[in-house]
């Protein structure tokens, strides 16, 4: 039986662009966005999904592929999976969330198999569902999103949210960059699934991931959690983009002179690599992989080998220069604060999923080699899609007559000249990239950097609105800037080391700081501690 699903209605737009009326608008078409769109459509909502690039190839997963936190539901295996990363994450996880993410990821991964994802089988003939090849997975997700009746707008970055009189989110608008016109979607609820922010560091698949969703949500009043957990750096060949780190577990890291970098390792020794890189080149060679492992690597992840095969390097027998690229909140864990099981944010009508939302609930302050991120994208996408659909269908009111555009930086006319977006991006990168500031944090350097970032924010708000073709880049630069300010303000507030957040001046974990750091604000950035459910009990008992 073919279900007939309601579709979003296209309206004529007097400005020459396109307009739609929908129940749910999803911003971002990576795994989180596509799961959200499908889940909302399955609830009977009319759904539009707008992606900056092409839904199916854009985002961090599409070119890379991910390990997935897919765990057998047997209680013992469940318990082991939940317990295994608590220490690394700094004890900020929530058992309630870990359990429901494991359930949802298990169920949705099994649906992927029904939909035809070519999962491999183990020697025992049983399927293995804890790894997804990016191109294959996201091609399938696009197909399923379309067949769910979702209207997809490709190459259509969102620029700002629409907000009604009551302050509830009522849609969004953006541009269609291949048509050089605009789009507007009026919707009862919006899901932000725009991914994390990697500051245009060329980490794989991240050129569109500039924190746009954070900025748009903050302009509507949303809050963040865990933005101090935003200093993930990934290993890649110095010249390349393929920041896949799993196989570097088999590497030896050396200085120019061939001697081994003490303490350097992909897992648990990445800071030693960063320290060595401050003084000169560092090389890697995957010499710890035996023949069998080498063959498995080649068959399993062909994209890992592209930089080497195409430059004639044999990574197993020859060493090559490496670098660490900033992944920011992609493999960090901070993001939009979630207030309930439906992934609602603090703003009515606004939901968040995937890297755009905080992942502290399932992995605390650390994700490392991942699999939690992919599981989170699947499950938070599904929760947010259903939540947004239920909210929109319950509160379905006549589309608000008066909606206000919530966008600020780069969108408001002013007497000063508009900013050069390339310069803006570089100025933010100069603050966010350096290992000295972001990886090895201390109060002095964070404070100095925040001074410069705050000044830059004033300049951005005082500058004239950007015009085509600088508009998208200017909003991206403003979003990266705002993101860096939430990151460093939160990093300053956490006067201890926990998860990936490491303070040179507070190198120990402080048991009294087992709490979350909430942050927010645009012109004035603020932070506030928020109790962890169990942490609160500990503090009360002291």
């Amino acid at each position, binding site marked *: 039986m073919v279900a007939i699903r309601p579709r979003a209605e296209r309206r004529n737009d007097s400005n020459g662009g396109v307009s739609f009326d929908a129940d749910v608008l999803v911003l971002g078409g990576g795994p989180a966005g596509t799961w959200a769109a499908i889940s909302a459509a399955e609830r009977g909502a009319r759904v539009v999904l707008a992606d900056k690039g092409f839904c199916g*190839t854009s985002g961090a997963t599409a*070119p890379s592929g991910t390990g997935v936190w897919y765990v057998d539901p047997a209680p013992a295996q469940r318990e082991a999976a939940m317990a295994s990363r608590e220490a690394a994450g700094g004890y900020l996880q929530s058992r309630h969330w870990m359990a429901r993410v494991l359930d949802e990821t298990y169920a949705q991964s099994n649906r992927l198999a029904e939909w035809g994802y070519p999962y491999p089988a183990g020697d025992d003939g049983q399927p293995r569902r*804890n790894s997804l090849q990016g191109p294959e997975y996201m091609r399938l997700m696009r197909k399923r999103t379309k067949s769910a009746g979702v209207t997809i707008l490709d190459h259509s970055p969102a620029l700002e949210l629409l907000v009604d009189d009551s302050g509830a989110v009522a849609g969004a608008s953006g541009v269609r960059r291949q048509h050089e016109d605009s789009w507007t979607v009026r919707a009862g609820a919006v899901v932000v699934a725009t991914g994390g922010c990697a500051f245009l560091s060329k980490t*794989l698949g991240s050129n569109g991931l500039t924190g746009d969703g954070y900025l748009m949500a903050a302009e509507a009043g949303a809050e963040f959690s865990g933005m101090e957990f935003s200093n993930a750096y990934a290993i890649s060949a110095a010249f390349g983009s393929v920041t896949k780190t*799993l196989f570097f577990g088999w590497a030896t890291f050396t200085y120019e002179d061939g001697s081994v970098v003490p303490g350097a390792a992909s897992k648990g020794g990445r800071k030693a690599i960063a320290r060595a890189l401050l003084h000169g080149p560092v090389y890697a060679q995957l010499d710890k992989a035996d023949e069998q492992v080498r063959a498995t690597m080649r068959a399993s992840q*062909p994209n890992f080998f*592209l*930089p080497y095969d195409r430059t004639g390097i044999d990574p197993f027998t020859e060493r090559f220069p490496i670098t660490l690229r900033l992944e920011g909140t992609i493999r960090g864990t901070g993001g939009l604060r979630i207030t309930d099981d439906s992934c609602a944010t603090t703003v009515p009508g606004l939901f968040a999923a995937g890297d755009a939302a905080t992942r502290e609930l399932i992995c605390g302050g650390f994700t490392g080699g991942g699999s939690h991120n992919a599981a989170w994208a699947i499950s938070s996408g599904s929760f947010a899609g259903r939540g947004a659909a239920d909210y929109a269908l319950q509160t379905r009111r006549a589309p608000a007559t008066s909606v206000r555009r919530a966008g600020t930086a780069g969108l408001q006319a002013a007497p000063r000249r508009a900013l050069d977006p390339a310069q803006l991006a570089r100025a933010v990168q100069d603050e966010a990239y350096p290992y000295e500031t972001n990886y090895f944090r201390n109060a002095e350097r964070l404070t100095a950097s925040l001074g410069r970032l705050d000044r830059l924010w004033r300049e951005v708000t005082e500058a004239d609105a950007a015009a085509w073709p600088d508009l998208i880049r200017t909003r991206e630069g403003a979003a990266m800037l705002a993101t860096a300010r939430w990151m460093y303000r939160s990093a300053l507030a956490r006067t201890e080391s926990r998860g990936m957040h490491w303070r040179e001046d507070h190198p120990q974990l402080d048991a009294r700081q087992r709490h979350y750091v909430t942050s927010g604000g645009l012109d004035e950035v603020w932070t506030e501690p928020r109790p962890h459910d169990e942490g609160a009990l500990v503090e009360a008992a002291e």
Partner: protein
Amino acid sequence: MIEIIDPERCTACNICVTACPTNVFDKTEGLPVIARQADCQTCFLCELYCPEDALFVSPFAEQPQGIDVVAARQSGLLGSYRRAVGWTKDSEHLREADRSFRLFGQ
């Protein structure tokens, strides 16, 4: 970065114009062009989507290399990634070749 559209192989289907996530290509009256090379994120996905194996992405993410078409053709690399992931007719069995599960947790 994207380096090459092979004019002999390209059929101007414009799939790459649509599929490139960072909008690097532009449609023209004839074959598409690499209009914004600096925006390329070196993700190699256009190679997977091009049905004619007409594209070549160099692994150098920061600097264009100025590779020429003839050299790219002779290298045998055109289409090599598409074959490796099983997206060609004769390599379909490779779509389920992922044995990452053997490497996790080692």
